[in-house]
């Protein structure tokens, strides 16, 4: 990091935000066509400080502060991507996705298909999601399902610094429009080892974060940490939980999920999007369909309450899955004998 001096360590501990910044910096250095645009991303360093320092390092032409016009910004990114650039657009909150949906859904997602492969849109749209700041209903949503539904888009949701760096680099190099969603509460609180060397993690590949035998917990973004904590608690009660992190929501690594559930026979899908008509429904449905004969219990979903996110922290916390709810749900899958 520029401020603290170059570390010579091979692997160091970083926060999620730092890992993302490192990925951005590395890709910007590597490819002059990569540039960043968004509101307050440049000189102010990003509202969550993720792009801090990049403006100074790369200049204002490559880290562009834009006016507040989400549709226009994303639209420009599409046009730039179609003509040789690799823009990384930042939307402060996924709550602002709806403002840019036309550009993402009707233009970016479909250009390659509608032109039978002539046009490519190698752009990345980064945005934050999740509750925890008392930011209320219009700044706390996890709307990844909206983009996951669209053929032609890729949706990536890393849960830890190591994954974030490798996945973002891959997203930037991907020739498709990739929506890369980061949990705003994890930028500085989720830390982990990150290799200070060039590495890429493939999109569309899930990761087993913890191996287990008795139940599969499919967890997304910050829910990975919740699931891991629940797994620890469950282990003390003799239940061995396997935690699978899809990492990419679309395209989904079905093989890894199904292999896990075929082994354990039980699945709980945990996400911060709303319960109804959400990403958990898609994953649960795939499991119920393709691992049907291996299921010993119904597939359960734990997700956010079907209410707009309330402001007061005590209310806000009650709308999302937590460790206790995961443990309780898992236990309900087992019979008296096992």
């Amino acid at each position, binding site marked *: 990091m520029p401020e603290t001096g170059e570390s010579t360590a091979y692997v160091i501990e970083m926060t999620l935000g730092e890992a993302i910044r490192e990925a951005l910096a590395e890709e910007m250095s590597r490819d002059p066509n990569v540039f960043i645009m968004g509101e307050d991303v440049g000189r102010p360093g990003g509202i969550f400080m993720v792009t801090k320092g990049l403006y100074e390092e790369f200049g204002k032409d490559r880290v562009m502060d834009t006016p507040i016009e989400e549709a226009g910004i994303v639209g420009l990114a599409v046009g730039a991507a179609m003509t040789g650039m690799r823009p990384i657009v930042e939307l402060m909150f996924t709550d602002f996705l709806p403002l840019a949906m036309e550009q993402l859904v009707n233009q970016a997602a479909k250009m390659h298909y509608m032109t039978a492969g002539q046009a490519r849109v190698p752009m990345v749209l980064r945005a934050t999601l999740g509750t925890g700041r008392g930011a209320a209903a219009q700044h706390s949503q996890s709307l990844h399902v909206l983009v996951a539904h669209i053929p032609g888009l890729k949706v990536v949701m890393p849960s830890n610094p190591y994954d974030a760096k490798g996945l973002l680099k891959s997203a930037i190099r991907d020739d498709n429009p990739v929506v890369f969603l980061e949990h705003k509460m994890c930028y500085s609180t989720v830390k982990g080892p990150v290799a200070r060397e060039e590495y890429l993690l493939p999109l569309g590949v899930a990761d087993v974060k913890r191996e287990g035998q008795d139940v599969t917990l499919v967890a997304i973004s910050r829910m990975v940490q919740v699931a891991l904590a629940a797994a620890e608690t469950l282990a003390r009660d003799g239940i061995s939980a396997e935690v699978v992190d899809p990492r990419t929501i679309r395209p989904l690594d079905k093989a890894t999920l199904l292999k896990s559930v075929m082994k354990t*026979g039980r699945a709980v899908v945990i996400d911060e999007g709303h319960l109804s008509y959400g990403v958990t429904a898609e994953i649960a449905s795939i499991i119920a369909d393709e691992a*049907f*004969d*291996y*299921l*010993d*219990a119904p597939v359960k979903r734990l997700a956010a309450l079907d209410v707009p996110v309330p402001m007061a922290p005590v209310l806000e916390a009650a709308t999302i899955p937590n460790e206790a709810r995961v443990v309780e749900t898992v236990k*309900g*899958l*087992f*019979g*008296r*004998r*096992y």
Partner: protein
Amino acid sequence: MAEDIYMPQLGLTMTEGRVVRWLRAAGEPVRKGEPVLEIETDKVSVEIESPADGVLGPILVEAGASVPIGGMLSHVLTAEEQGSRGAEGQGSKGAEEQRRGGAEAQGSASPTGLPAPSVIPPTSSVILSEAKNLEAKNLVRGRVVASPRARRTAAELGIDLVQVEASGPGGRIVDADVRWRAENIKRETQTAQREPQAASRVSPLARRLAQELGVDLALVKGTGPGGRIVEDDVRHAATAPLLPLSPAPVLPCSPAPVPSIEPLTGIRRVVAERMAHSFTTAPHFYLSAEVEAAALVRMREGLLAKIEAATKARLTITDILLKVCAQALAEFPEVNVAWAEDAPGGGLVRHAEVNVGLAVSLDAGLVVPVLRKADGLTLGEIARRRSDLTERARAGKLALADLEGGTFTLSNLGMYGVDQFQAILNPPQSAILAIGRIKDRPVAADGAVVVRPTMHLTLSVDHRVLDGALGARFLERVAQLIQEPYLLLE
């Protein structure tokens, strides 16, 4: 969703509990926490409360019956479940009537028209009620509720889901329940293999066939439900080469000074089981006689060379004794009988052939090869066959056919210096003759004490089949033939 009412574990040592009385009846509405029945263990008496609001389902275990921990007693059904018609209602009614019908209902259709469930009739009342309970419970819903994984496992392992007790949420049969049942069946099968005489372990057809083919059911492995011996098993055993009587593998020795348990395998195991069974089920009655053996010895010496030249076998005292027994059996067909295990009230099997078995002691254990139709064999033939059988026995190459069909056994321990002993009947035979050594002993003759070579005979008979007088007459004839062996020419 129905809630289970099951026999709870109330103490560390509790393994089962008895239903004392039901406080509520099937079909009555119950509330959560209300006492529903009274149970007792050997230590305590306790009331079981309803786990939920609803309606009490069919009573699965009547007052007075005992079930193991976890055994299902009843359910609390929701209004919808209670109210649903058709298969569910019929199923529960049919199951209840069948239970009350007891033995008579077995194998016949229930009053509701549903076919009786094909349950293997178990042997204890606890198992009976459990099997019925499971079925009743599983059929109450009109279908078996099982997870897909459980169904898969059941299909793989060949388990009938209707027989599986559910422990999953909402009364669902889960994978572990199926595997539990498979384990139980395995244990039952192993038990069945040790008790081939148990009525439920051999199908009637298999039993008939075994008799026809002369197959010893004790040596047949059952592959039917619950380890039952079925027709195919008997056919297979009749044609298969020797299996269970090959010498047992060398058992591992524990080097430690602590005594370790060596499980019995192979012949020794079979012998142990059969001896125990024989000795405890057949009432043994013993008759002894001391006979003069000089004539026997002279006869042997006289025929030794000739028979050896003709058959290459060396004639032994045992060979002559085999002929004597065969002759006596031919003359006393009422001794050539066997006890019939599955005849209700007892029965006899009158053998058509005189097949005399000779007890042969091997390192691995006792085997009894059989000389078939011994009454029609010459001494030379007996010697030759006996020689061949004992040689093959020692080499571990006896075939099943060599061991089957025996109707009488001769056991000679004379070569070990034993004067006299009482043999244990070789089931299902009714008589066995034990021979001691020929030794010079003082006997009374013409008022004086003289020394003559004598031999002790002890006949053990199954007093269910042969009474003392008959045994005595048989022994008398045997003794006569031994002391006057020329009578064999009659």
